[in-house]
């Protein structure tokens, strides 16, 4: 998905200023400066502004950005690591952001570096995309471009996990390591490392220009600001959009040309996310999604067409996620493999489906909280949401039949596997 659904959708209050995705891209450096104005120089004062803005991480975990900067500010000289690896197959927001507005990401990385006195600044992107070439071109056109290194990372779901990314940049495989130490304690080259998603940094660059009040004018009181969302599934124009947090999911779909058929469920947050039932009035915010058992994650929203099978789609994702294990922790390697096999049996509505379903609870207990990273827990939560939201479809499968009219695959599941190095 290289084209985004188009129009930068600024909230009413943000008229007159530009967001993350200007209508026709930000263009070359001169054009970027004309659009956004010169890069400000707030230095360490930026941290206080970020604190006031309430900006939280846009990579999925949503940790308060100011706190992360503060954690590396006072100790040894830190490294800034911008994470644009986006291993989530259904998410394209970082790819689109880097393609259409690389200078805003670079600005954000350098502003963060100045705020925490970092010298080394790295932007990490997925190897198989055009992002590295686009960034190198953008950097070559800037006077401060030589401050930033671009690194390409293997195409794996888990390669963008913080400890995996740091381990890879330190010369190892792109696999998670035992924590502590966390990256902010000991990261790239043994230095405290500030790891921030590229959208977080681009947003930070906007806040540095327009201020915390401007940022808070969009979104909700508890979850301020605009975000990028990737919308796909049963929508007419799938794509990446910039929207205020708290937008109605129905409005989000309307901006993507509307639904092609009624949705039986929404998958929010990608394959680390959860299914939610298509309740009217749901908003794109953690507060609203929590009422339906969901959460934002990196704001990937997939509308599942009602003609398809939620059990089968979930089984396909779990099989993919089992293959994405770094194969380091036994409960992840064997547990996810077994979970995938049980889901496959249920999806095919085979005679052993009831037995497979009954085994899920015990399997959950033997996997939960036992991995070195959050991968197995993320898959468990996804699986648990599937059994809740598709309860009726599960019952049908256990009785030996499937209620779906179409078995055409909806959720994107890559078949190609990247290397670990």
């Amino acid at each position, binding site marked *: 998905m290289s084209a985004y659904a188009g129009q930068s959708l600024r909230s009413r209050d943000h008229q007159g200023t530009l967001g993350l995705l200007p209508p026709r891209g930000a263009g070359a450096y001169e054009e970027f400066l004309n659009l956004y104005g010169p890069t400000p120089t707030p230095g360490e004062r930026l941290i206080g502004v970020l604190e006031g803005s309430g900006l939280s991480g846009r990579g999925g975990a949503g940790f308060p950005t100011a706190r992360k900067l503060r954690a590396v500010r006072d100790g040894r000289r830190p490294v800034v690591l911008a994470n644009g690896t986006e291993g989530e197959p259904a998410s394209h927001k970082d790819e689109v952001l880097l393609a259409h507005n690389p200078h805003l990401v670079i600005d954000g990385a350098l502003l963060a570096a100045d705020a925490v006195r970092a010298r080394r600044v790295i932007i990490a992107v997925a190897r198989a995309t055009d992002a590295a070439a686009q960034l190198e071109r953008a950097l070559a056109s800037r006077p401060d471009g030589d401050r930033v290194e671009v690194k390409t990372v293997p195409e794996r779901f888990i390669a963008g996990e913080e400890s995996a990314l740091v381990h890879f940049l330190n010369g190892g495989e792109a696999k998670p390591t035992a924590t502590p130490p966390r990256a902010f304690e000991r990261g790239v080259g043994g230095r405290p490392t500030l790891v921030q998603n590229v959208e977080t940094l681009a947003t930070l660059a906007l806040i540095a220009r327009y201020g915390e009040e401007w940022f808070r004018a969009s979104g909700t009181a508890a979850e301020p600001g605009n975000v990028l969302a990737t919308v796909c599934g049963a929508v007419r124009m799938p794509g990446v959009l910039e929207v205020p947090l708290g937008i109605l999911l129905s409005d989000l779909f309307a901006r993507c040309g509307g639904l092609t058929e009624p949705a039986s469920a929404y998958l929010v947050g990608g394959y680390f996310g959860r299914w939610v039932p298509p309740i009217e009035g749901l908003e794109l915010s953690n507060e609203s999604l929590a009422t339906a058992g969901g959460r934002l994650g*990196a704001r990937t929203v997939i509308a599942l067409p009602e003609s398809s099978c939620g059990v089968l789609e979930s089984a396909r994702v779990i099989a993919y996620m089992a293959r994405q294990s770094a194969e380091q922790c036994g409960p992840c390697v064997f547990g996810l493999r077994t979970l995938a096999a049980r889901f496959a049996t249920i999806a095919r509505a085979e005679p052993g489906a009831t037995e497979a379903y009954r085994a899920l609870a015990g399997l959950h207990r033997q996997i939960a909280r036992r991995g070195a990273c959050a991968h197995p827990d993320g898959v468990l939560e996804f699986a648990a949401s599937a059994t809740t939201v598709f309860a009726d479809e599960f019952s049908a499968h256990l009785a030996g039949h499937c209620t779906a009219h179409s078995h055409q695959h909806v959720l994107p599941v890559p078949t190609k596997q990247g290397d670990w190095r």
Partner: protein
Amino acid sequence: MSKPLHLTLDMIRCDAYGHCAELLPEIIELDQWGYPIINDPSLPEHLHADARRAITACPRLALKLEHRPAANAPARSGHAL
């Protein structure tokens, strides 16, 4: 007075040899694939010697004793931040 000790496991190192569950069955059980489950990592004093034996016996050096309470371990790293 001795400090409270906690048993911690590096799951990446662990290769399911299972010696620990033999030597410290009061604390460690094995899952269906042979990997240890530590239900309560805080060690009562009368098990300290057995815990040290289990740690020494692990061919993968995956177990260790820490004074830091395991319940206050830092938040695990998420997939993305």
